[in-house]
């Protein structure tokens, strides 16, 4: 197991280098530079700006310089927000994004697993249809629709909760967490129901049933382990996706997180900020996929054998 983890960590290095390299050249190919503005920048000014940020160097040299700095953990200064370094901006934005994602995933797991498991126990009855229909609606309902609806109802009409901010007014963290977690709860409900149904039809469960074990015992002791395997596979990328996808929620609720910076950086052609955030997210994605795989192995001895043996 330890060897497996070390191996995976070593594999992460080429992944991150690959991501950094591809992104570096990709953003340079995108039209429009960081200083392009509605009002044309006078050529003599542009020349000085390019010099300052070494954009007049040959591309290979810019790349080499960037990689050298990167290996020292330095993402460089932001182009759009020049008094901030990318490291500063990540440090400033990550806590809000992480906290939001954490609440959202907890909400999704609690609601989603409960609904999925209950539905699978009485498949094709009302206990199945109602939560699964709700889940379908949850999936159809993108955050950019759900967020404004929740805001309209709880923020404007009822006036119970603040409509924007993060940690500024009491209760302002509830709606964004629910909005972000809702779709994931729905996915988890559907996936866990599917996984549970698969497991419940397996022979060892039928044997357990035949032995007259209680439903609770069957579910929690025998079925759940196998049943939530697909949920775990989903969770790794989902958490990473949650971090990156929090952009919409962060914009709707005015949360000072990384997602908003990421998308704005792409639109602003803020080269260093895009790169820094991409690499940072890549790191998180690798990390969470690794965690998901570890849990997967731990839940399934046969896979463990498979991975550990090699």
């Amino acid at each position, binding site marked *: 197991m330890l060897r497996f983890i070390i191996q995976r960590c070593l594999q992460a290095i080429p992944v991150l280098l690959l991501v950094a390299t591809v992104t570096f050249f990709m953003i340079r*190919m995108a039209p429009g530079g960081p200083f392009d503005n509605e009002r044309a920048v006078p050529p003599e000014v542009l020349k000085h700006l390019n010099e300052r940020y070494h954009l007049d160097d040959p591309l290979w040299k810019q790349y080499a310089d960037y990689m050298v700095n990167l290996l020292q953990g330095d993402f460089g200064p932001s182009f759009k927000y020049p008094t901030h370094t990318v490291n500063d901006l990540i440090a400033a934005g990550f806590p809000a994004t992480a906290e939001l994602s954490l609440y959202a995933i907890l909400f999704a797991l609690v609601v989603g697993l409960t609904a999925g498991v209950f539905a699978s126990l009485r498949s094709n009855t009302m206990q199945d249809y109602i939560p699964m229909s709700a889940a379908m609606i949850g999936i159809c309902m993108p955050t950019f629709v759900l967020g404004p609806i929740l805001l309209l109802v709880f923020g404007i009409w009822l006036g119970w909760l603040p409509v924007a901010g993060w940690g500024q007014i009491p209760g302002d963290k509830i709606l964004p967490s629910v909005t972000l977690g809702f779709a994931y709860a729905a996915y988890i409900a559907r996936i866990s129901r599917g996984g549970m149904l698969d497991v419940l039809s397996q022979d060892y469960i039928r044997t357990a049933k035949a032995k007259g074990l209680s439903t609770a015992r069957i579910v929690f002791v025998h079925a759940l382990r196998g049943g939530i395997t697909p949920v775990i596979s989903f969770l790794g990328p989902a958490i990473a996706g949650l971090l990156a996808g929090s952009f919409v929620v962060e914009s709707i609720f005015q949360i000072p997180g990384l997602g908003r910076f990421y998308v704005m950086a792409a639109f602003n052609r803020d080269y260093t900020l895009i790169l820094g955030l991409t690499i940072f997210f890549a790191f998180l994605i690798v990390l969470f996929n690794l965690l998901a795989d570890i849990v997967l192995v731990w839940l*399934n001895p046969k896979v463990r054998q498979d991975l550990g043996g090699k």
Partner: protein
Amino acid sequence: MSANTLPTALLDSEKGRSLTQDAIARLKKNKMAMLGLFVLLFMVVIAILTPWIAPYSYEEQNLDLGASPPSAAHWLGTDTLGRDQLTRIMYGSRISLMVGFIATAVALTIGVLWGAIAGFVGGRVDAVMMRIVDALYALPFTIFIILLTVIFGSSMLLLFLAIGAVEWLTMARIVRGQVLTIKRQEFVEAAISMGLSPWRIITRHLIPNVLGPVIVYTTLTIPSVILLESFLSFLGLGIQPPASSWGSLISGGVETMEEYPWLLLFPGLVLTITLFSLNFLGDGLRDALDPRASKD
């Protein structure tokens, strides 16, 4: 799956036709699934016939009328430019259904094959393939799309590829996870020991046995693909006004949901109905294709 079902599993490939017939028979018995199928077929037929049966032209404006609630002349109301909403939803279905099905099919094909191969072959190949998936996950999607539009212009084909290119990643991970779990089961090991080619094992034994989660995930992918399309239009890829799609109607409707709720309600409703149908059909298919389910 235990040893006593082994022969059936191994024979899957040999008597495919009868199994398919079997599955169809089971599907026909599932009322919800059949209802879903009919609704979807109905949608597709409407989408195809739209140019001939739409009550108005999708671009015809009536600025003096502006946004109006449902009425006898406009069953689903009109948008802020006075265009008939029913017509725009009907035309939108042509784009959205096509995007939903084709892009998902692209994602499905790549994702399932990639995940199954990685999971089955294992070892170095698995590591490299999955790390590629990790890397692709991390690339900045917005910049990727902007580049595509700049290099190739704005075409529908590109739209399918772009969406397919991002949506297959999660599919691949799910399938790989499933394959890892089942590849140590007896029927696969038996198939290996019988000397069947890896391709045959993957396509005939592994993939059919991961279909459950795959179908579930597919029914979930189609809606997100339909909505993703509106974000890509935002970046300049895909349909251009005055053409409409469900995604663009919905994202436009959100903005004015307080003032003109029908502009969000009806496109949202149509999308929801489609997804419910898909979902029922998906569940039905899943049950029908699963040999174990029939025994319950």
